[in-house]
């Protein structure tokens, strides 16, 4: 038999098809499980969506694991081949890139399949997959993509990729035993936990600079270990790790910095990109920063003498503009003129945000939430954390009592994520009529988050839900203002009705949000136990046909 050289694309196709087959089998399996559950438990489509979304989020992990496992079993003989280690390294990088491509394509396929089943699956797409799905399927029923969803997918992919590369790919210097991995396997679980929390933190929407720093940190760490694995013979000490990481991190910053300097006079670069670079650079390079800000503002036709003064104070006097100083340009007036999200952020960055008054914060949030050209996203929690690093309880309470609906909502989200639970309880009790209205109509998924949180927190004290009899409750008649009188006693009912309404609702995104809120909140150990009990209780209740 005559054999011919197998080109690299053919080998890749074979691997790809293997994975595709496995993934397809999993989809079918999960689909069958979902259908069976739907048939037996009824109205249980949420489980199907959960199963698919689980598959989608973890397909990246699955594929990379499978690929790298293949790769590492082949490592021994690959290393014995007469090819240089540099070529080996290059081939490895190419292989990793192909893997990323494969992950993207396969997860897109999964997502598109899930979309065919339910449009709600569109919530799980990242922006590129969103576009791809729209293009391929020629459909217009896809929900608009929230920013957090995009970030979620992106960060999960990045984190999973890095974690896999660090832990699954062995260090080629020392291959076969437990100690031979770049990071000793005994630390593996700690790193997984750490990356999980970093991932959760990133999903919750921290300030951009923190996100960026974490990303760079991970990148530097990953690069260091790769380089060490391929080019260094002796294991290095901690000081070397620190020095190498610092060098690589500086290199990353330098590249970004040089890129910014080069882009100042690049007329083809969109202004929003320039503005985001300003956010990053700050006052690092006065000339470049100043020039870029001026260019952005000019392009938006809002450059005037007031603006020149602001920029002058910011860059030349080495201090941020005091938002309370009557001499400076009014921050509210300034952002009202903004036409893009990044220039909106960049303008606020010129001011000392810690001095913002409650009134100013209210106005900024209102503008942010009402401007049609800002990519409005109900789950975006960035605006308040961007405006101020840390809110005092007093100021948060003021915001929670704001007359502006958007501000109240933003403050509530912040209270949820910063765990100011007492405020949430206070707020719910004080604004029960608002919640009653929202929950009845099921338009405000945020209410679920907050109510669930309050319920879980209180459950550990009262343990009501396990003892309560819900059979006689008619949730349609259940008035939330009742709970104001005796909150602890009614928490079980509140939770039951809350979920019951979510399950019965035809508004299909609500359960997704419910599930996602579980995902976000379940890292809290105190809540986790109660969550498990409540979930079990819910399943039991459903089994009794309630």
């Amino acid at each position, binding site marked *: 038999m005559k054999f011919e050289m197998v080109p690299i694309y053919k080998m890749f196709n074979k691997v790809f098809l293997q994975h595709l087959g496995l993934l397809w089998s999993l989809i079918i399996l999960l689909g069958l499980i979902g259908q069976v559950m739907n048939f037996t438990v009824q109205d249980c489509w949420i489980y199907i969506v959960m199963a698919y979304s689980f598959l989608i989020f973890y397909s990246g992990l699955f594929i990379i694991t499978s690929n790298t496992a293949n790769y590492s079993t082949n490592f*021994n*003989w690959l*290393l014995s081949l*007469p090819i240089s280690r540099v070529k080996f390294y290059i081939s490895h990088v190419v292989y990793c890139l192909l893997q990323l491509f494969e992950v993207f394509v396969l997860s897109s396929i999964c997502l598109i399949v899930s979309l065919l089943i339910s449009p709600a699956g569109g919530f799980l797409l990242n922006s590129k997959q969103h576009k791809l799905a729209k293009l391929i399927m020629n459909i217009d029923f896809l929900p608009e993509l929230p920013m957090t969803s995009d970030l979620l997918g992106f960060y999960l992919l990045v984190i999973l990729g890095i974690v896999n590369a660090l832990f699954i790919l062995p260090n080629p210097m*020392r291959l076969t035993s437990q100690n031979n991995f770049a990071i000793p396997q005994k630390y593996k679980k700690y790193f997984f936990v750490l990356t999980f929390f970093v991932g959760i933190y990133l999903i919750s929407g921290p300030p951009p600079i923190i996100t960026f720093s974490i990303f760079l940190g991970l990148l530097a760490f990953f690069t260091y270990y790769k380089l060490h694995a391929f080019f260094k013979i002796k294991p290095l000490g901690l000081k070397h790790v620190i020095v190498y990481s610092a060098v690589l991190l500086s290199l990353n910053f330098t590249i970004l910095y040089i890129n910014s300097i080069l882009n100042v006079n690049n007329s083809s670069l969109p202004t929003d990109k320039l503005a985001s670079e300003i956010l990053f650079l700050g006052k690092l390079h006065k000339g470049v920063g100043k020039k870029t800000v001026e260019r952005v503002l000019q392009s938006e036709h809002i450059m005037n003498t007031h603006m020149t003064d602001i920029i002058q104070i910011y860059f030349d006097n080495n201090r941020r503009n005091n938002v309370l100083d009557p001499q400076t340009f009014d921050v509210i007036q300034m952002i009202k003129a903004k036409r893009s999200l990044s220039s909106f952020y960049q303008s606020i960055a010129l001011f000392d945000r810690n001095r913002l008054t409650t009134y100013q914060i209210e106005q900024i949030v209102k503008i942010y939430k009402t401007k049609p050209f800002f990519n409005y996203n109900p789950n975006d929690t960035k605006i308040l954390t961007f405006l101020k690093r840390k809110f005092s309880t007093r100021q948060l309470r003021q915001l929670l009592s704001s007359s502006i609906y958007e501000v109240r909502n933003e403050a509530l989200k912040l209270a949820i994520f910063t765990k100011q639970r007492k405020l949430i309880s206070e707020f719910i009790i004080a604004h029960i009529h608002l919640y009653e209205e929202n929950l009845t109509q099921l338009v405000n998924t945020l209410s679920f988050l907050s109510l669930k949180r309050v319920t879980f927190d209180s459950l550990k004290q009262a343990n009501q839900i396990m003892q309560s009899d819900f059979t006689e409750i008619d949730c349609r008649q259940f008035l939330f203002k009742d709970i104001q009188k005796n909150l602890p006693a009614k928490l079980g009912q509140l939770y039951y009705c809350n979920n019951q309404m979510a399950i019965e609702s035809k508004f299909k995104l609500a359960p997704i949000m419910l599930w996602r809120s579980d995902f976000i909140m379940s890292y809290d150990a105190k809540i986790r136990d109660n969550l498990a009990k409540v979930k079990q209780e819910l399943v039991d209740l459903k089994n009794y046909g309630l």
Partner: protein
Amino acid sequence: MEPALVISAKKICKTYGDLTVLNKVDINIQKGNFYALLGHNGAGKSTLLKILAGQEYYNKGEIEIFGKKLDGHLKEVKNLIGHVSEQINYNVPLSVGEFFINYSKLYKLWNEGLFQDLISRQSFDLSRPFNEFSRGQKMQIALIAALAIEPELLLVDEVTSVFDVCARNFYIKLLKDFCNRGGTVVMTTNVIEEIQNNATDTIILTKGNILLNTPSHQAAQDLVKVRKTKENEQHDFFKMKQLFWVGTNSDFTESYIFHKKECVDKKEYLSFIDAREITLNEVFMFYTLRQE
């Protein structure tokens, strides 16, 4: 004339974290010889072979292969070395034929004729994918491929222990022929009988140290085997600490070995001497037990 050195390694150290696998190992491998590298499990045999094959780095020491330092000439040296390990796992989504077409392009001296000849003698179907072959068959294919690259040095790590008897004899003969043509083989195995009469040299490695590196026929020359029977079992000679038990014989007598230099009075043991030849197995047992 001094025989040509294929490998000259000095003070090789290799550690995994706190675990020292090789501790200042000195080893010289001469051209045309068949070396049996013996050692208990975890002695460092596979690690040593991996280091010599350029697969794994060492922490300290110097290695010269074919007169060139391994560090700077890894790629050139790899062209001259065939390495087959039981740890090698060809996990590729290709048929054997497809795989070796690609594989052969990496080696300058690939001998397609030899490869096809050996493959057909063992009746392997090249159109089958790797995962359809048993472990023993995969190892056989790997060994054939290693021979087909026309190496000067062949490092064989525990491969033959997964072969059936016929295959084992076939490949041992192939390796001997390879040595007769001027090649050098370093082979580790736990089935010492298979190389009893084939290995020209024996190296014993224990706890990261070389205990013995000598021509096989001289391996036992300083050792004496004695037999303990019912009649002599109470004799004080058998209470000597330097005596090491190496096995029970078919007549229920027990064999012990000791080093000539470690027994002062020759007359004392003359009457207990076991006339049978000391096997390589017994030599290995003696040295490793004595080390422990």
